[in-house]
């Protein structure tokens, strides 16, 4: 033992020093420690589902008070949001709805002309985002809604301004875990707003977390994008069509073969999202039922949309089909 890491090690404290002087006891202690190291390695190698179950169990038990506190504080901060800002957003929405009333009528008329059935209403669940702020939790968020509210795995999550935040990875009864677009496994099929160029968007880690960007891959070499072009989801995969992703900044040097890649500045920084909307899954019965067959409708005439459940509302405007 090296006594006295330097001068401060007084003799007075030496008598208080406790150690595993008994050889057997020390060996036993080392054996137990080794056992815990092995257990930690096992935890690291557990399958994803088992890891999720353990994590979920801990979050719903001993850590629940901390999560609940953030939920409460998060709701209060949302309620305390600047009312002028909310009023401005409400005004712009009202103006948008007023301008689109003629479009709705026109759309309905064209659908009748083309003999298309009405679209089924899309829905969402409002939720608060909880972030843990722990090492390793950077791309993860918790939601205060779960399967009781209709949230399922792979439900897309968008911000209150309609920008893509991420996707639900696991849905419990009253809470859910999601991962945002900075996750290394994030992928979203994307296109320009006019649909002329398509590609695949993934995270492009920056030098530090705040500098993370998106990378648009797989753009054909003959198609070129200018900075400032807005990208939206194209409806392939779990994300519905038309969710805004970000703006093209510049061409990336990570191009492969005859494809171009572009760096994209995302519309939303994950840390800023506090209030989000979880998009509900589409009713399977209606997935392929938008088109009527020549003999008549493939499905019975769709009844008037049901009254939305509590916390669930129509979300038609954001999901053009």
């Amino acid at each position, binding site marked *: 033992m090296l006594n006295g890491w330097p001068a401060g090690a007084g003799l007075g404290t030496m008598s208080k*020093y406790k150690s595993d002087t008994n050889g057997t006891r020390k060996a*036993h*202690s080392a054996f137990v420690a080794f056992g815990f190291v092995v257990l930690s390695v096992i935890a690291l190698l557990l399958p994803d589902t088992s890891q999720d179950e353990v*994590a979920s169990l801990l979050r719903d038990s001993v850590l629940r008070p901390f999560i609940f506190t953030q939920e409460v504080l998060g709701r209060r901060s949302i309620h305390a949001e600047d009312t002028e800002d909310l009023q401005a957003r409400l005004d712009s929405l009202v103006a948008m709805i007023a301008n689109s009333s003629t479009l709705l009528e026109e759309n309905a008329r064209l659908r009748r002309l083309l003999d298309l059935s009405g679209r089924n209403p899309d829905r969402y669940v409002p939720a608060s985002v909880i972030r843990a702020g722990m090492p390793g939790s950077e791309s*993860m968020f918790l939601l205060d809604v779960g399967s009781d509210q209709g949230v399922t795995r792979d439900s897309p999550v968008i911000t209150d301004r309609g920008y893509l935040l991420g996707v639900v990875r696991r849905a419990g009864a009253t809470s859910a875990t999601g991962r945002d677009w900075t996750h290394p496994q994030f992928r979203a099929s994307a296109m320009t707003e006019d649909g002329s160029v398509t590609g695949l968007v993934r995270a492009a880690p920056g030098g530090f977390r705040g500098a993370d960007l998106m990378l648009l891959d797989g753009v054909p070499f003959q198609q070129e994008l200018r900075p400032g072009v807005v990208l939206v989801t194209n409806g392939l995969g779990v994300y519905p069509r038309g969710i805004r992703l970000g703006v093209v900044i510049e061409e990336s040097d990570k191009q492969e073969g005859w494809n171009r890649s572009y760096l994209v500045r995302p519309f939303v920084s994950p840390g800023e999202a506090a209030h989000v909307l979880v998009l509900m899954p589409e009713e399977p019965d209606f997935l392929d039922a938008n088109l009527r067959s020549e003999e008549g409708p493939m499905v019975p005439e769709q009844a008037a949309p049901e009254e939305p459940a509590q916390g669930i509302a129509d979300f038609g405007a954001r999901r053009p089909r």
Partner: protein
Amino acid sequence: MKTPARIWGVVGLLILLHFGLHVSLGFGEGAPDLLAVGLLIGAREVGMGRAAGFGFVLGLLEDAFSVLAFGANTFALTLVGMGGAGTRDFFVGDSLFFVMSYLVLGKWARDLLHWVALGEGLREPFVDTVLIQSPISAVYAGVIGLVVIAISGLGWETVR
């Protein structure tokens, strides 16, 4: 006055504060790693096996919020707890310098082990993470640890 009740009371308070700051208040990296500080203080008071178990439990709690690499925090804190208890056989420290060095190196080792356990696909660059960000957060945690030890009345000899 240093008593086991006071030491473990302070350690418990650090753990509560850690989750309170990181989870309840959502401070993220702005808040110090009080879990590592609590573990390092507690590890000097028990044997290697218990310290490793203590680190294992704390790591699991932290990994409950980890979606990138579940188990990385558990692995790191288990080894840090084990190492912290092991230092009793090499150093009898009751000086300010020892306490600061112990806390800073312990926290840095925790970050290094976490980086190693993350795996290649998830790691950020070694220099950025382990050589730049980690030493800063280690000094931050060390200073906060010193303040906690001072104001709690444990004295420098607590960590020994």
